[in-house]
């Protein structure tokens, strides 16, 4: 009977130890660990997208510069047209209305 109780107590202590060790060993991998495992292809694709994003940003900057230059030219032309209109009126002429759909 004494041996039975000794085995029972030892089993309890053993189960505590075993579950403790197996629990610590079975720790799930973190999400960052999984990312590292996938880093080969994932990093290559990330670089491709980053390069494309840089190129798109440069194109957008160029387009913005060109648009600003075009706007400045339009403003200059409008001022020039006003000057020409005043000159035409001063000489007694008149300005015909613009054809439909051009304004």
């Amino acid at each position, binding site marked *: 009977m*004494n041996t039975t109780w*000794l085995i029972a107590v030892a089993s309890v202590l053993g189960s*505590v130890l075993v579950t403790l060790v197996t*629990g610590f060993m079975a*720790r*799930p991998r973190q999400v960052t660990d999984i990312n590292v495992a996938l880093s080969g292809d994932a990093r290559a694709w990330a670089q491709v997208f980053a390069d494309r994003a840089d190129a798109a940003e440069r194109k957008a900057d160029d387009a913005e510069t060109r648009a600003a230059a075009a706007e400045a030219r339009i403003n200059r032309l409008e001022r020039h047209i006003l000057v020409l209109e005043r000159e035409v009126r001063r000489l007694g002429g008149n300005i015909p209305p613009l054809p439909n759909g051009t304004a």
Partner: protein
Amino acid sequence: MVRRNPFQVFLLTASLVAAGPLILGRPGPEVLTATLPRVAVTGWGVALLTGSTLALFGVLVSHRSWYGLVLERSGLLGVGGAALIYFGVLLTAGHDLTAIRYTASIHAGYAAACLWRAGQVTVTMRAHRSAKAGR
């Protein structure tokens, strides 16, 4: 918000307090010292002390982390096992059943509650692993 079960904390603290004197060499429960060999009584005290300490540490300090769950489950197995042994000793010690039924049922219930909670923690750990693995 972290919610700990106050009943669990209270019962584990009570187990810790009960196990202390045994480890310090003081006489344990009479029914245990009369039935079990000295080394088994000490082992029972160690199971109760380490179990309640681990489970309390898991619940209070590392609550909801993987290591907290591991500590809680291991500790509850120790405490539940110790309560089960106490229940078994009471039943086999040859006492009058009417005299021990209250103490025996308390220990049987405590053991069942500990093992039940250990099972719940195991299910939580499985869910934790599945979520981490992205399955």
